């Protein structure tokens, strides 16, 4: 049915069981920069239980701030503990040496259980096209991996990287939180249309009315990915703005899970071992 999801949430009913939901932009552990309520590990399974979420892809706070290697280790431990429902990004800190970054990419992605790369040039104070990020982007290109970044500095930088690394998937965070009339927003839309390896995400604390719909109209539902910044920010806020959007169910299903599932399946890393633990079995 075309608008079943909308009618379901408008009437406060239970969502269909066959809805595939993957939160491709999530976190874990409280950040120092603002107060949270429920950012601890124990809260990670909450939306999985309540809304039958297939997976949340997390980046621990330490990975993007003070302790990249320790944070990556924690991400691998979480993935192992929660057996596939919690999955993970590894982070490359561009201020580390090339050798350390390459070792870390191998440890987390080839030998470990993480599946994608997260970059944060704002915190790391390094340009996206700078040398510190080269090992990560080369690795993503070689293994057809998704690279999520908080920002890509500018549309021009992203355009250059998408062309230089055509097998990597470039994931633009926080896109639908932007105001759509701004020239830079339009430019991101233009380069997304010109490059099949660029995707835009819905993670944002504020949701301008119509922004998700406008983005889908501009780039197509196949190029939009669902994220929430959970469990710092509310999974429900992020989920609700998609479910209430003026889009048909097919588009919503693509955004909420099918698109990211497709990207991950194109990875050349091979099958991962998501060892089941007792706690994750309970979540099932």
């Amino acid at each position, binding site marked *: 049915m075309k608008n079943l999801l909308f009618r379901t949430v408008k009437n*406060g009913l239970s969502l269909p069981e066959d809805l595939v939901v993957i939160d491709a932009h999530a976190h874990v552990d409280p950040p120092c920069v603002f107060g949270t*309520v429920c950012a601890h590990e124990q809260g990670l399974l909450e939306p999985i239980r309540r809304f039958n979420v297939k997976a949340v892809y997390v980046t621990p706070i330490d990975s993007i701030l003070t302790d990249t290697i320790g944070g990556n280790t924690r991400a691998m431990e979480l993935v192992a503990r929660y057996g596939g429902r919690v999955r993970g990004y590894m982070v490359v800190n561009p201020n580390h040496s090339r050798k350390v970054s390459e070792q870390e990419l191998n440890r987390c992605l080839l030998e470990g259980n993480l599946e994608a790369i997260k970059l944060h040039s704002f915190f790391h104070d390094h340009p996206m096209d700078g040398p510190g990020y080269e090992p990560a982007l080369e690795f993503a290109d070689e293994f057809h991996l998704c690279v999520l970044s908080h920002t890509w500095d500018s549309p021009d930088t992203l355009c250059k990287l998408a062309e230089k690394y055509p097998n990597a998937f470039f994931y633009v965070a926080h896109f639908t939180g932007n*105001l759509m009339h701004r020239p830079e927003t339009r430019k991101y839309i233009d380069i997304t249309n010109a490059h099949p390896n660029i995707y835009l995400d819905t993670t944002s*604390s504020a*949701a*301008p*009315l119509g922004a998700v719909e406008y983005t889908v109209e501009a780039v197509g539902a196949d190029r939009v990915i669902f994220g929430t910044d959970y469990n710092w920010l*509310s999974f429900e806020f992020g989920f609700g703005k998609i479910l*209430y959007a003026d889009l048909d169910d097919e588009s919503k299903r693509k955004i909420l899970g099918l698109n990211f599932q497709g990207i991950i399946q194109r990875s050349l890393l091979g099958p991962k071992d998501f060892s089941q633990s007792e706690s994750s079995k309970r979540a099932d």
Partner: protein
Amino acid sequence: MNEKLYFFDVNVQVGPLTVPQPWHRDLTAKGTLDLMDRFGIDEALVVHTLSREGHPSRGNVRILDETCCNRRLHPSWTILPPGGPEFVPPDRCIELMGDNEVSAARVVAKYAGGGVPLEIPWMGKWYEALAEKRIPLLLDMNHTSPFYNEFPWMTIDRICEAFPKLRLVLLGAGYRIQRDLYAMLAKHENLYMDIGFYCLQAGIEDLVFRFGANRFLFGSYLPHYSPGGPKFALTYADLPFEDRQKIAGGNLKRLLSEAWS
């Protein structure tokens, strides 16, 4: 989850926008009602955009025209400091509010391009008059940001302390205020807020756990922002139906009904 909540939105604007987005087609009362229908919002407390972006003397008249004879849209008036040439004194303004069934006031805080000084030497007469009539005062920070993470907490502390009967409502409070907010909510029973941008994971549940459900309101900031997120979060919150209903609309209905009493 079969019980349907009744939504009464505290933060809706009617009227033309300085920077409309491509999908902003009908910004009249009719267009607002269409949006409310789409999202399942039953009633709304509305302000005219001219009151915020033009001048209250024009916007406050226009909002009466827009809401006239409509039982789903309830007007609020934007106020300016007393003692100047551009606005009526508080006592006279409150008389006019009563004559026109306006049960809430709104103040746009001082910002780089305009607004009002909130401190007591400038606005104290207003706070006193509104407190006496139990008319809620909505604090609108009018930042260019979609939501507000920088409230003037010391000023809010002084206002709430000096006027304990004033019902002060923070509009558009963002997720980054938690460390400031809790102390203020604990200290001042007369401090309220809308939850429309308070998008911390389990944020609404934790507010209710610590402070009860009586001081939180549903606000969307239509037509700028989508009510989808906060409406979904409240509808599916891990709270008893009674608490969710208070936040969805019961608390605002109570606040407005207690005005003038």
